[in-house]
């Protein structure tokens, strides 16, 4: 890795970037226009994001808070927990002295901000022995923390055992390499049986014991209740956004998906996240009332991304979809399965409910939420089993009136690349034209965004979608 990269702490860079960017909320339109001319490298990203108004500014504030907390953690006597995007962070905030750092979020930020993405950090992982075929979503910033360019990690807690080996393996490697305590929640291949729920609950309690032991404190029950009550509000607002997406044209700007899940992965339960969701609801409601598409132009087609999005430089895929008048109907990352969501499946145990009546019900709630996070719920068992990938994708495609399905992921995803051909065939049989993107969502060296865009264009044209 270039020595220069170690000289500038990554989290400090993120914190300062977001701290400066959030001030754009106080700028005039003219000032913003001048700014975009002055920063041609990131104007392709800033332009579309700022065009959505206040929610974008609040998002920038959220990220400034998140990375600000991270860089101040040690000074404030807090411990830093390395975790994954599909691990709901509420429990860390309930502890008060734990600050989570989510590798995948950092990787996405570098991927969309820098043309070179996080290649240097990815390659550092290989340099110190990690498999180069491992998932790029972790490697992207894991290299920073392994090399010392990120904050010092105190412990590692994840939840991908039984769901995603490459994810678990990356965090396990990081823990061993840094010689830090590790805890991994484990998941059976089924979701709904009572014995599985019991397993989730017991395992989560063991996680809490681990956090108490290595975090050297007990979590604050009142704080946990407060966070969960706030999450209830957040779920209701998110559900409203989801409900409005069923309209034709879809009034939700595609980029909202990215902002919502990134904020949820990092700031779940925070009041500012609630504020951002409220602001989004206002924007989307206004679009809906006026029959406007979230893209700002006519909707020609609706695409469900049945795995993840693509985070190429300047959010190329989000931009491509909007330019081609294709509504982005969300991805696996967008859905969390609360029991009041419009896309809930009416099968007992498939969704979670928030119960704050007692400590036990709150812990069970956290375990249930974690068991239904993106990936954790949908790709744990056989893709064609009840409540798994195929049923979820078909259900979402139907509810949101998708015209087609697009798979986008990373070559590091051993899990989905082992059955994506099967599900694609089934989606086609059910009448959904389905496109498989062979690029890497986080690493433009695998396939350039330009090549990916060309293949998307071909798919949408040949299948008569545009």
């Amino acid at each position, binding site marked *: 890795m270039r020595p220069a990269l170690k000289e500038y702490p990554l989290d400090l860079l993120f914190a300062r970037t977001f701290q400066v960017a959030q001030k754009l909320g106080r700028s005039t339109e003219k000032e913003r226009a001048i700014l975009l001319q002055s920063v041609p490298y990131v104007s392709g990203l800033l332009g579309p994001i700022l065009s959505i108004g206040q929610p974008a500014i609040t998002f920038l504030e959220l990220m400034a808070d998140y990375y600000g907390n991270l860089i101040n953690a040690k000074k404030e006597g807090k411990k830093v927990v390395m975790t994954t995007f599909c691990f709901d962070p509420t429990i860390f905030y309930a502890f008060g002295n734990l600050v989570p750092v989510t590798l995948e979020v950092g990787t996405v930020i570098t991927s969309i901000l820098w043309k070179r993405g996080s290649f240097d950090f990815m390659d550092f992982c290989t340099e*110190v*022995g*990690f*498999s*180069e*075929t*491992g*998932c790029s979503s972790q490697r992207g910033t894991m290299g920073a923390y392994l090399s010392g360019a990120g904050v010092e990690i105190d412990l590692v807690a994840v939840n991908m*055992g*039984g769901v*995603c*080996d*490459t994810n*678990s*393996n*990356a*965090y*396990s*490697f990081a*823990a*061993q*390499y840094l010689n830090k305590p*590790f*805890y*991994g929640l*484990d998941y*059976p*291949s*089924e979701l709904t049986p009572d*014995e599985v729920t019991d*397993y989730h609950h*017991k*395992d989560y309690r*063991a996680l809490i014991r681990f956090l108490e032991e290595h975090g050297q404190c007990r979590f604050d029950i009142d704080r946990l209740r407060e966070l969960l009550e706030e999450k209830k509000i957040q779920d209701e607002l998110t559900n409203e956004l989801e409900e409005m997406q069923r309209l034709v044209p879809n009034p939700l700007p595609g980029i909202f998906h990215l902002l919502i899940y990134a904020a949820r992965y990092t700031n779940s339960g925070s009041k500012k996240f609630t504020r951002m969701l409220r602001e989004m609801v206002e924007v989307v409601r206004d679009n809906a009332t006026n029959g406007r598409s979230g893209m700002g132009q006519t909707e020609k087609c609706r695409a469900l991304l049945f795995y993840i999005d693509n985070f190429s430089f300047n959010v190329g895929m989000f931009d491509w979809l909007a330019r081609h008048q294709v509504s982005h109907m969300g991805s696996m990352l967008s859905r969390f399965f609360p029991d009041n969501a419009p896309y809930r499946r009416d099968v007992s145990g498939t969704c979670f409910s928030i119960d704050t009546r007692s400590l036990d019900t709150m812990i069970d709630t956290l375990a249930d939420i974690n068991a239904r996070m993106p990936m954790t719920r949908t790709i744990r068992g*056989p*893709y*064609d089993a009840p409540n798994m990938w195929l049923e979820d994708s078909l259900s979402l495609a139907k509810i949101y009136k998708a015209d087609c399905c697009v798979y986008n992921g990373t*070559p*590091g*995803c*051993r*899990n*989905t*690349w*082992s*059955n*994506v*051909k*099967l599900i694609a*065939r089934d989606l086609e049989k059910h009448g959904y034209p389905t496109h498989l993107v*062979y690029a890497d969502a986080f690493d433009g060296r695998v396939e350039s965004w330009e090549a990916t865009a060309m293949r998307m264009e071909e798919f949408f044209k040949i299948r008569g979608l545009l």
Partner: protein
Amino acid sequence: MSSILSQAARSIDLDPVRKFKEKGGTVIGYTCSFVPVEIFHAAGMLPIRLRGINTESLNIGDAYYGPFVCTFPKALLQQAGQGSFKFLDGAVISAGCDAMRRLDECWRKMSEDVPGALPPSWFYYLDVPHKPQGVALEWYQSRIRKLIQALEEKFGVHITDESLHLAISKQNKVRTALGELAELRCLEPAVVSGTEAFEALIARNVLPTDIYLEELDRLIEEVKSRAEPVSGYRKRLFITGSICDDLELVEQIEAAGAVVVGETVCYGLRNTSPLVSDTGDPVAALSAFYLSGSVCPRMFGYYPTRLVAISGRIKRTQAQGVIMQNIRFCDLHGSENGLLERDLEKLDVPTLRIEKEYGALTEKGRLRMRIDAFLEQLEKSRPPVQEAEG
């Protein structure tokens, strides 16, 4: 050298298995070392660990799996699609790793296109947790009980504690004998080649136990009585890493002038922990034994346990170098080999890290060149091997 063990290690279609079937026996295939074979033996069945050896094309495997997937499960699917597993009455797919657990779906879906590719009677998925203790161990135990129940219902058999104890006892005899063979491999000068020993280890996974035990005992006695040690080897090597039943790899290493004195790979000898308890609740004993070793990097967070076990065996075998191999896209072993490289080198154990395809799909010329170079490097003098602290 035992011709029965050698044949068993080199072919999927085996005479003893055919004979077992002709007598009305039930043969069950399985895919991972976390499946307790004693359960099938207790039911009077023959468990056979599935292998993808001699796979020359992956046209079937590639049709169902995506491109970024290890060639081992693809080779198994290929063999299944080609009809090489027609002798199976049933199969158990378990959560070895992501690609292996998806063999469940790929095999089922492939059989919709290739009628008869699925075992006729039974196709079962076994959940295996990724940690060895507490709630995970309880869960695993409950899965083993479910597996027993499923076997009983499907095949009309009754698996009793007594039959399980008998099966455990017999498999413990196998483990004891394999331990003895492993000890013989520690001798310097070497008295048994790695190829010969590896044949015996692989054969364990596919032969009826009585035949296997007889052949293994015979081999051990014959090795003990050998007048001449293995001649002319340059260095003693140890193999770690991804699943490996690739005799050609061992033969290639030995053809380059080394002797392979031990390995921790699936199909080889991985778990040298004490025997399974043959008293008390047999399911609890089996669960504890199979899950507790943490012998595979699929058990996340247990690398230190494995390091101690592996470095201990390296020292005991007096290996002078370690070849750490992984199949491309096997991230678990690929990454663990990185940690092992760091830690073994700290213990003054020279290592060679290689990435390759599964079995016959490996490009052999490139591999041979690297093994030759490693042996040349080893011929510089090195201090004695240390052991990691437990």
